[in-house]
């Protein structure tokens, strides 16, 4: 025996067995559950969907920097004088 009162959105013969209260409770609860889950996530994650924010793959170690080469002073030709030196 169904003791639930038939207070329905539509006439009883059109609503199947669910009452208006049952439907509203289900819709509200699912809506609140999803909103609560979304609110617990960072804003950017919410905007970009559930896949965003997944752990990144492990970073590869950076390649070792090449050893700096010593600066080699350019050689000046023998006997050449700097032009600004005058006579």
């Amino acid at each position, binding site marked *: 025996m169904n003791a639930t009162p038939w207070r*329905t959105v*539509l006439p009883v013969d059109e609503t199947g067995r669910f009452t*208006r209260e049952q439907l509203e409770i289900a*819709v509200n609860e699912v809506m609140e559950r999803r909103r609560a889950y979304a609110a617990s996530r960072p804003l950017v994650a919410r905007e970009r969907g*559930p896949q965003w924010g997944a752990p990144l793959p492990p970073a590869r170690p950076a390649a070792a920097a090449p050893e700096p080469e010593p600066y080699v002073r350019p050689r000046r030709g023998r006997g050449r004088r700097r032009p600004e030196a005058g006579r």
Partner: protein
Amino acid sequence: MTPDGYDRSVFINCPFDAEYQPILYAMVFAVHDCGFKARMALEVDDGGGVRIIKIKRIVRQCRYGIHDISRVQVDPASGLPRFNLPLELGLFLGAQEYGSREQRKKRSLVLDTERYRYQVFCSDLAGQDVRAHGNDPARAVAAVRAMLATALEGEAQVPGVAAILARYADFLAELPELCDMLHIDCGELQFVEFRSLIATWLARHPLGYVSPGPMPWDVYSPFDLPPFAYPARTPGARG
């Protein structure tokens, strides 16, 4: 005398096979999202009374009709085509032609997979608004939306196609959870239950509601839902 809700009722006359279900689900949602109420022969599959009388009652109560005549192939089991859809289309057009002043306000949308294919098998439909959906639910929604946008002498305000489809995707994402809450399997949903669920969902998700987006546990894409339960044909199903 105008039946209650006549101006806002849409009679959906379409196939019920599993292959057609995604289009049917989408159209039922679109009708409700546009502010109208979907009516179908599935409402009367309760085993009692004469089915055609109940269908005629629904036709009388609906100002708008959506008729999909795309299933013209023969039934593999019987080797014969089924004629329920053209029969109900004829009932609707007859009411529009010979009915009372209110009944003559009826408007129909005829759907097929291809636009001009009906000229081969039902050429007398020429002059009706026949649109093609190409077995694509989104195109069917667009056709329904286009018809309802001009309903009520242009007074109906309906959302755009993209908005309807986005909300439909949100609804379908929540549907498994809703069914869990109601202790029912999605495949057991009858048309009247599905429709009530849509109406309740839309009331709590008005246009402009910002969806929190997809959840990691969402399982359904919009087009892989199980078909409605058919109480008259499925022994043991609720109804």
